[in-house]
């Protein structure tokens, strides 16, 4: 890689100007279209009903075990209805819980993802066709900001929050059900990738002066049987964990959109960096 000749430099400069003038806007337009599509997925309206978000029902179950079955209604970012059936192993008794009518549970992951996408869109909207990019650094900065939002949006869906068991026990979710959840059952909802997950923990109380080594479990997305925790001076151990899930198609779409847009952004950055390595003495 010897120093580029003068003619070569001129060609490169022309090419770089084309990149800034044409290609960048083409990519930005493409990005905007994709992200608009992604953003639209988060607020699908019910056809016919004005301003009403579309309601979708999901049946969560697994083919191998039937101890837990859930029917959840998702409306935008909120779970508006939930019916959970739990078969208790030893007594073959079936417990049934449903959301109280006045309550709904917001899935923070979806709200965060939606807000991050909208912020990314806002950033892109501020640089429309009429804007003239002058330096590669400017494009890089914009791409960095957009990619940060997109990575956050995707990460919110791909990495659910980890929680400790006492956090889960005291969360508002336990108070949402009717009939009230018994003390030895806990539930949790979260999104993992494009799947809506329901986890049911069955607990048994440990004797206060138990000989067993008590070691409280840390935070985790999904706790394993045997995890222990203490709340209100009572000690519990997780005896059974049931996890059921169901794919939410539009979440899958958004994840694909995020991945494509991230790759577009990175490719644009890579293109710019190719030019910057030719002119080391110019601030690109």
């Amino acid at each position: 890689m010897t120093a580029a000749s003068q003619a070569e430099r001129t060609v490169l400069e022309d090419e770089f100007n084309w990149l800034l003038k044409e290609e960048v806007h083409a990519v930005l337009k493409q990005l905007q279209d994709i992200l608009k599509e992604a953003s639209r997925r988060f607020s699908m309206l019910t056809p016919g009903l004005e301003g009403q978000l579309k309601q979708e029902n999901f049946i969560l179950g697994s083919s191998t075990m039937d101890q837990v079955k859930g029917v959840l209604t998702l409306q935008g970012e909120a779970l508006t209805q939930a019916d959970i059936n739990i078969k208790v192993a030893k007594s073959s008794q079936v417990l049934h819980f449903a959301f109280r009518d006045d309550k709904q549970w917001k899935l923070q992951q979806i709200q965060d993802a939606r807000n991050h996408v909208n912020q990314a869109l806002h950033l892109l909207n501020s640089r429309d066709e009429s804007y003239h990019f002058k330096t590669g650094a400017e494009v890089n900065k914009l791409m960095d900001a957009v990619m940060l939002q997109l990575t956050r949006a995707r990460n919110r869906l791909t990495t659910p929050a980890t929680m400790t068991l006492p956090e889960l026990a005291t969360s508002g979710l336990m108070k949402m059900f009717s009939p009230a959840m018994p003390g030895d059952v806990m539930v949790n909802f979260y999104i993992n990738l494009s799947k809506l997950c329901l986890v049911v923990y069955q607990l048994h109380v440990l004797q206060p002066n138990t000989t067993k080594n008590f070691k409280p479990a840390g935070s985790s997305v999904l706790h394993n049987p045997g995890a222990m925790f203490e709340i209100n001076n009572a000690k519990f151990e997780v005896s059974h964990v049931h996890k059921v899930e169901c794919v939410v198609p539009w979440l899958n779409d958004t994840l694909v959109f995020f991945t494509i847009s991230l790759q577009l952004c990175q490719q644009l950055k890579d293109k710019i960096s190719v030019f910057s390595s030719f002119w080391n003495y110019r601030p690109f």
Partner: protein
Amino acid sequence: MSGNSLVLPIVLWGRRAPTHCISSLLVMDDFATIITGCHDGQICIWDMTPELEISPRALLFGHTASITCLSKASMGSDKQYLVSASESGEMCLWDVSDGRCIEFTKLACAHTGIQFYQFTIGTQREGRLLCHGHYPEILVMDATSLEVLYSLVSKISPDWISSMSIIRSHRTQEDTVVAVSVTGILKVWIITADVSRMQDVDPVFEEESKPIYCQSCQSISFCTFTQLSLLVVCAKYWRVFDAGDYSLLCSVPSENDQAWTGGDFIAADKVIIWTEDGCSYIYKLPPSCLPASEHFRSDVGKTKESSIPPLVYSIADCADKQLLICPPVTRFFYGRREPFHKLLVQGDSAGRLSLWSIPETSPLQPLSSAAELQVSSTISLQEAFDKLAPRPAGIIDQLSVLPGSEEPIKVTASVYIPAQGRLVCGREDGSIILVPATQTAIVQLLQGEHMLRRGWPPHRTLRGHRNKVTCLLYPHQVSARYDQRSLVSGGVDFSVIVWDIFTGEMKHIFCVHGGEITQLLVPPENCSTRVSHCVCSVASDHSVGLLSLRERKCIMLASRHLFPIQVIKWRPCDDYLVVGCSDGSVYVWQMDTGALDRCVMGITAVEILNACDELAPAAVDALNHPAVNLKQAMTRRSLAALKNMAQHKLQTLATNLLAADNADKGNLPKYSHNALVVQAMKTNVTDSDMHVLFFDVEAVIIQLLTEEAQRPNPTLVSPETLQKAPGGADKGGSLLASKIFKQVKETIKENIKEHLLDEDEEEEEEMRRREEKSKSLSLLEYNLTMDTAKLFMSCLHAWGLNGSLDEVCLSRLGMLKPHTPISFGLISRGGHMSLMLPTFKESLLRRLALAEPEEAGGRKLSVSEIVGKGTYGVSRAVTTQHLLSVISLANTLMGMTNATFVGEHMKKAPTRPPRPGTPETLRKSGPPPPTSSPALQAQIKQGWSQLAAMHCVMLPDLLGLEKFRPPLLEMLARRWQDRCLEVREAAQALLLAELRRIGQSGRKDTIDMWAPYLPQYVDTVSSHPPLPSPTDTLRPPQVPPHPSQPSPAPPFDPPAWTLFHFLSFLPLHPSLSSPVVLGQSG
């Protein structure tokens, strides 16, 4: 402060100011300081005069991601605190005066806004921080401990809060928090005294929730003039609301497609609104928005879009927009005290601050054409650097200025080899320079005969890269398994080159990557033999290579990652190389076969990365962000320093043992010169390197003492020195250590002897040959310890206060005067660091000029006046650190034989024939002082003693109280039992001097301030008869006195205890009535 060791940084900034792309800004309440945060995570403190002149003072390091918001965190003007939050969820509390980090924390979510709020219950005042960001609540934190106390929660459609304002009510104890969510819903919370007091209780729900249909709200502000209206600025319109019932008073759309980014009230009837591209407009509000007008609320419920109100002023962005790479940040600040400035402040991506002073009156011309308001003051970091004469020095500037060019060649990568005291600098033109670090630093910082020599200090240039060198690695420093001759460099020409640093030979060029090399790493210890002789290279084409230095070939190339590589981790036992990419995906590669084992995302990816951490925490390496590297380097550096300390102790002991009965001292092992560590830093990847010299005072002292003990001619050693040296080293260690040392003494002695004598003869032979061969090419050898001490003492001495002492320092002690004010730094908790910018003196000088206008106006301040004195007027923490260092070192040098920095003993190796072009006369400027003369020895000792005495007791008088920031008592008290005897003695002497200086009233104040933090039973001690009882004048300190303990100090806090204990017995202390005994008190 930073653990236990006393480490002082000195910065060589170079001519290019660091990149400072401003992301947030804040004007402190006193209108004397402006704070800016940048996208790379640094915070800049700017000083502002009442005439609105600004100059940058210091740069604060610690955040690893873009600064999202800044807020003040204290109310009083005596102690100003600042809180900063970054994109990655870090929060940090800083002391504005000296840039110390007082507290830091990290949350999972990022804040986008913080507001300080002080509430009062009775006489008690407590600070709270209200934070909002990428989460649906408003978190309320304690302003000193940064703990989340409770949160303000929405019941109805909770969503992220985009902006927030606090409405203070003077009538009731209730304050109102008004916020707008991203979906355009106005939320109101009431904070009552009950709410403020509670901790750990249920969240507070909103009082009111009202949709105001303000999409993408940018800011909300409350009119402090009328207390009756609210301004909400959205991207495409701004609106005024009634602050009582939140009804819409007027709505103004933006013109010509501009995007508004914020606004504020500047008077009861005027608002200022600014746009994304940096323009601002002042509008006169329509009568329907003015509570004073009879038309107030006349339009409620009627209009949706009002017409555009009359424009009073327009303020265009003055800066050259060509260079801007992202939208500037604009804010309005209104001074509540003299001189009541109304300031519009703007910071842009070029590190430029612009100020506009908003006039009270409207222009006289007709309102149809808005008057343009001229900028009051503007400066960028680079301009501030350019104004300085001489220009801020870079570490090898004198070697880098090409003939015919003004600017030195940029240093783009550097590595310091402590074992040889050498700095390796890779430059923009592809050359690599090897240079003795202390020598080159002396050239840059100090005046001396070296200024006349061209090409000084002797250096070596390695040429091989075709273009910019991007990274350098000296593998032997990381692990002893590598050959100590190899140096590895990577460049933008895609190549990695292996060099022999002794011969300067290019050993091999690896060309395996398809992009610029961005990072070079060393695999961990327990890898397979094949891999353990490799270095790992990362390139910008998203590939990772394992390059075997032994086989001279690339044994694995992991490429085709879709995103830039952010982190490399290792699973040596499984033979896995784990690559983390910037998009969160993780690739697991088999090192031996080069097969991709798996590629994962999401939870699994996080788990794999975490699992690697558990196995080998040392192998973590975040690559992408320079600040991450910096922070890691900082923490690692101090760890390494600690480790080295332990080794030094052993070596010191061993040396002394051997010295006692071994006449042949030529064989003694050499020490690594870690008294000085040079760390290259850059705030942004595109910047050139700046260099920070870290001086470890303790290590300098130990090395000096060790060398003293090693002195070849015992007749020269005075008996007291002999006594002192081993004594000092022994006492330096802990009490327990000395006991153990005695037991293992013999064993160690044997071991060392064995190690020294039973070395493989052949290898020794080879080494000797190699050394002989390399000698001809090696650089001039220096006594590194003395050189380091010389550099350090010359930088620390307060020049220009005592003419005769300065003369003694120059001629007798061999110190040199600095060219320019030295930019020191301050290391605080958790590797946070504050570095003074080269312009830090500007504001001090201005302050001096103000203090004595007739003097400063008449003549220009002399160079020595600018250069000297300064650091003792910066801040109390800086003074403490510097005084401790200078006094402990002076005391150490006083105890040494021939402790002067002039003369032949400074050169270790026999002098080589003078370099061509170097005049012989310069080399020997004067006859070398006869080292054996006892009279001269006494003069040198006296010189050091005078130096110590001046810094210990005379400084406040010489400088004058207004220019002197006295040392902090609690910091001195902490060193009362320092493990290093010299530091301990210096701390004790300083503490005594300071306590005497502050007099009885000052001591009483100190006791009063500390009393509430002490255990109860101390009161019986403190009510000791000679003392005025502190209990009757007990008042709560406004802020916790020791910054390292923001929460009330635990009852058995040692420094508080020591200090208090000491204070209580003080009046009886005999030394207070006699001059403080300096020097060897043992």
